[in-house]
């Protein structure tokens, strides 16, 4: 049975290759292969889940493979299953299958239909690989494969400059985090000699990581475990779009809507939370680990800040995107205060209802687009004429869709209530567990503590969440249609609504898998029993949080208030009118609407700075210093050679020639003496003899 684990990621991977290499020209065949593969993965996954759930005290199953030798050691890669993996295998393949089925309808008529299914198959293979990986390296490989696919899918309509920029931004932003994770992994491997989770979590290894310290200069001395944990968290911050690397996620909606659902719910962003949860013993290796504090603090801050941005957005998908960032913050803050089960619980429930909401928004957008074309045709215009002026994502262009798309509407309402945290939907139970955990801890530690901050941010965030969702459903489904496009909408095809209904059903009931045990009648604490002991080997155990009626009651009340306020304020919002909050909030509204100007800040500093520095380096290289030195060296040698040549011709050769010429001239002169006439010679001889005689006499 467990020998089939490999197949869970391998099937979608094979489907990717089959589509790219063979099935590409045939659209129907391509999508059938993709859906068949993910469907089979889903079946195998649930069979595995069933085995794990029904086995009391399930022991981890691990299937390693020798992957890479290094010196006298060998690194193994493999797949494994434990209860935590099992609960992920319950969620991921199912949600992915729903998204695939939905895409069949949504992507109808796209020229790159086959390619879309190839990409999403690879994407899913990445996520499933991450979930079944028994070690950090395979997890990282899968993680990066997802990064690639998100790049390809966000930029799927790459002719649009906005899509191509969003794709690049997503890849680069997450890459920054990935590099930190890469370093963390290299460091961990160096310290422990292994990357396999079960080997890392052996008590003696954890002990070593906690005991070994390293000096970081001005930052003081830190245990190795904390540094590794922070580096891993860096990766998660990128992938799970936490502050300050959250900027890519809202732009990621440039991709087709099913991709947004895939990225925002079941796969990409869940990966960051999953990896932090999976390596939680490293985070918690030392008492009061600053790594955990960082996770909790950043999570709580992100949960609140992203929710404030969401209330000021008009794009239906952008609201959901910030909502995702905010909800991921909830998961992170849960992990940061040691609420492993609560964080995982929220990860699972959120995947279902966020996939539901994204697919629902896709159904709405799809329908508004078609309505726009229908309205244009009704007015006798050519379709596409007003394309640039019309934004089918803008909630201000919608309204009154309640009666026109009933299936989408009802499922959307279920998703909204779950996200807002209204009892007894799934989101209520999971979010409440996080808040109860924080509340319980701050009761012990007082208000000057992380748990208090987490609880406060979480509760405020919950109010805002309910408010922006109330605003959204008010704008989209209530009131009167604000445009002709909204007037001409109608329900989406069954291939799109059926997945909505399936996801809605799970959203309704999923919360009951972990109702706290002390809750009357339905209390079970099942999830806690199921995954609560996965880190027992590393001596990390979690206590169940009892239901707190104060916290639960308060958050339900706040959720209803928020929803009601948002709904009431926006349901009859007239077309073209300014947002009712714009005036009362004034400059704050502008800041929120512009997302705190973080994008502008990054592009002015990091992006421009890097590009400017790169140009500077190139000038230094090519025009100013390095290459000029080489060229000067060349030219200098050439000049020196010319000087040598001149010296050679004029001085050295000149001397030689001079001697020659001198001899020649001298010969010329002396030659004149040699006349050949005997009388001349006699005269000279006589004169010489007389002269010598004279000299002799004078002495």
């Amino acid at each position: 049975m467990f020998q089939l684990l490999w197949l869970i990621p391998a099937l979608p991977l094979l489907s990717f290759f089959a589509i790219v290499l063979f099935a590409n020209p045939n659209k129907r065949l391509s999508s059938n292969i993709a859906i068949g593969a993910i469907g089979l993965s889903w079946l195998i996954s649930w069979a595995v889940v069933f085995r794990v759930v029904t086995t009391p005290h399930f022991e981890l199953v691990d299937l390693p493979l020798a992957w890479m030798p290094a010196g006298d050691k060998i690194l193994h890669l493999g797949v494994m299953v434990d209860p935590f993996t099992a609960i992920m295998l319950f969620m991921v393949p199912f949600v992915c299958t729903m998204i695939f089925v939905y895409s069949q309808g949504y992507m109808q008529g796209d020229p790159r239909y086959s390619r879309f299914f190839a990409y999403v198959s690879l994407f899913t293979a990445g996520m499933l690989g991450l979930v079944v990986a028994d070690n950090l390296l395979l997890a990282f490989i899968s993680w990066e494969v997802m990064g690639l696919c998100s790049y390809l899918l966000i930029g799927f309509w790459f002719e649009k400059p906005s899509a191509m920029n969003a794709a690049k931004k997503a890849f680069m932003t997450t890459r920054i985090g990935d590099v930190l994770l890469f370093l963390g992994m290299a460091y961990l491997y160096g310290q422990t000699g292994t990357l396999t989770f079960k080997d890392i979590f052996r008590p003696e290894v954890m002990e070593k990581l906690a005991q070994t310290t390293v000096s970081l200069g001005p930052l003081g001395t830190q245990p190795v475990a904390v540094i590794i944990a922070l580096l891993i968290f860096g990766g998660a911050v990128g992938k799970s779009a936490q502050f300050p690397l959250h900027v890519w996620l809202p732009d990621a909606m440039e991709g087709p809507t099913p991709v947004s659902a895939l990225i925002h719910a079941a796969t990409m962003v869940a990966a960051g939370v999953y990896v932090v949860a999976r390596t939680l013993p490293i985070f918690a290796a030392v008492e009061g680990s600053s790594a955990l504090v960082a996770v909790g603090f950043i999570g709580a801050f992100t949960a609140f800040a992203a929710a404030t941005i969401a209330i000021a957005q008009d794009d239906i998908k952008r609201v959901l995107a910030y909502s995702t960032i905010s909800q991921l913050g909830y998961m992170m803050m849960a992990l940061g205060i040691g609420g492993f089960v609560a964080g995982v619980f929220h990860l699972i429930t959120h995947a279902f209802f966020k996939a539901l909401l994204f697919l629902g928004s896709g159904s709405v957008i799809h329908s508004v687009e078609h309505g726009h074309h229908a309205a244009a045709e009704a007015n006798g215009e050519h379709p596409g004429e007003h394309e640039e002026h019309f934004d089918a994502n803008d909630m201000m262009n919608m309204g009154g869709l309640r009666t026109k798309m009933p299936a989408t509407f009802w499922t959307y309402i279920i998703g909204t209530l779950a996200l807002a945290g209204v009892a007894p939907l799934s989101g209520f139970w999971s979010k409440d567990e996080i808040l109860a955990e924080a509340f319980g801890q701050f009761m012990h530690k007082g208000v000057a503590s992380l748990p208090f901050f987490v609880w406060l941010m979480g509760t405020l965030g919950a109010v805002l969440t309910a408010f922006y969702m109330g605003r959204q459903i008010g704008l989209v489904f209530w009131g009167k249609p604000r445009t002709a496009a909204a007037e001409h909408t109608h329900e989406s095809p069954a291939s799109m609504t059926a997945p909505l209904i399936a996801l809605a059903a799970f959203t309704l009931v999923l919360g009951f898998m972990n109702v706290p045990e002390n809750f009357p009648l339905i209390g079970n604490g099942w999830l806690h029993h199921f995954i609560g002991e996965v880190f027992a080997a590393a001596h990390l155990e979690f206590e169940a949080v009892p239901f707190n009626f104060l916290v639960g009651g308060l958050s339900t009340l706040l959720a209803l208030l928020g929803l009601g306020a948002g709904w009431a304020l926006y349901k009859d919002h007239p077309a073209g009118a300014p947002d009712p909050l714009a005036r009362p909030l004034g400059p704050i509204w502008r800041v929120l609407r512009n997302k705190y100007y973080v994008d502008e800040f990054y592009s002015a500093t990091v992006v421009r700075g890097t590009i400017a520095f790169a140009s500077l380096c190139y000038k230094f290289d090519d025009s100013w210093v390095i290459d000029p030195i080489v060229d000067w060296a060349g030219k200098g040698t050439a000049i020196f050679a010319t000087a040598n040549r001149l010296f050679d011709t004029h001085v050295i050769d000149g001397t030689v020639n001079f001697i020659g010429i001198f001899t020649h001239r001298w010969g010329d002169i002396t030659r004149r003496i040699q006349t050949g006439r005997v009388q001349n010679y006699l005269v000279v001889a006589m004169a010489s003899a007389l002269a010598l005689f004279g000299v002799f006499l004078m002495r």
Partner: protein
Amino acid sequence: MNIPYILSIITFFPLIAGGIPILFMHKEDETLIKRWAIIVSLIPLALSIYLWATYNPAAGLVVTEEKLWIPGLDVYYRLGVDGINLPLIFLTTLLSTLSIYYSSHVVKERVKEYFLFFLLLETGLMGVFVSLDFFLFYVFWEIELVPMYFIIGIWGHERREYAAIKFFIYTLAGSVLMLLAMLGIYFTTGTFSLVALPGKELFGGNFALQSLAFWAIFIALAIKVPSWPFHTWLPDAHVEAPTAGSVMLAGVLLKLGTFGFIRILLPIFPKIFHYYAIPIAILAIISIIYGALVSLAQSNLKRMIAYSSVNHMGYVILGIAAAAYATGTSGTVLVDRATALNGAVLQMFNHGIITGGLFFLAGMLYHRSHTYDLSAFGGLGAILPAYYGVVAFMSMASLGLPGLAGFVSEFLVFRGAFAIIPYIAAFGVLGIVITAAFFLWKVIQMIFLGPVNERWRDMPDLRRYELISLAPLMIITLAIGVYPAPILNLINSGVVAVLRMIG
């Protein structure tokens, strides 16, 4: 391994069976010359695969040929094979075959001379990898320059003469330093043998002279790699070289330098290398970051890939420097050193495969558009889906996407270096981020994404011969990325032997 003189055959077959007959062929007989060159290049390829398949990693360094060559100087014709040069032998034969095959479809001028020089190039390059005698090493090191000089100078683009001369003179200047150091070593030890030299005391233990010789050889090798700041011949040579010339240049020629680090500097100067390892690691980091940044600032496709080679070869130097720095420390760090050095050797191989592929791709685009200017393109993704797919694949491999070859070697280098020189290595990851930026922005976005540039509407997608030239490189890239154990078992055996030897 039981074919006698197998390394000699691999080395000289292209020249003797290919070059000499081609010399006697009529220059109008282009088809015959091309076919002959392809067939001849296949033999060393087959033999190198056979060698790989039959080589036993446990055997360590195997000397296969040894004959006294110049008796008075004690120079031997000595060839050998181990886990370090075997992947590079295979790389050389593979890229030679692919280059010759690809060129047979695109080279139209002076065909006879072109293939003659290419076969001579293969012999020259191979000789460097298989030599186990310093003198012989030096001879091949010089021989290989000549055909490359002509390939750039005759079949290159506009500024080919400048680039060819710069390439030739720069390398030659370095070689002189190496020659002097080599003679110095010979005069104090009496041997050129790369098998006997390790462990010998050079220059009677004179530290200053040893350092001088070390740096002389280092500079000669660093010019070839090229390491910052000796790299500026590379972009010019690449931009001007014909496609297959760039493939061989990036794919094989650059590896001669780093191969020399491992074959000569590390075993002969272990203590000196240890002493200077930190400055060299810093040079490597500068190459990594600076190479990536300058790549980011390019608008010429080939120049960009050339600078990315400076970045990628920087990882190789980093791995070697880290391994050298750990020399003489206790046995527990063997795994760290071996990991770093494994990464360096694998990175040499991977860079040859990946960047070789990228230069093929750049040439294919030039063949269609007659420009390397990135801003001239845009939107080709919709016109050339297959070409786009291959470029995206190779770019991802080059930027180190896990699942493809480049990641494995980068991971090994950083894993090893991070355990030995953490602070220096940590800076290196900046290079990884910037590498991703320029591949996504300069290559993928500027060529393929955005609105379609109507000028290229009728551009044809990949042809069959182009796909055949690329397919082996893609398959190897994927295979190593998914399952690196086979090649790493081989490399690891060679690396561990070297490390145990130097202690």
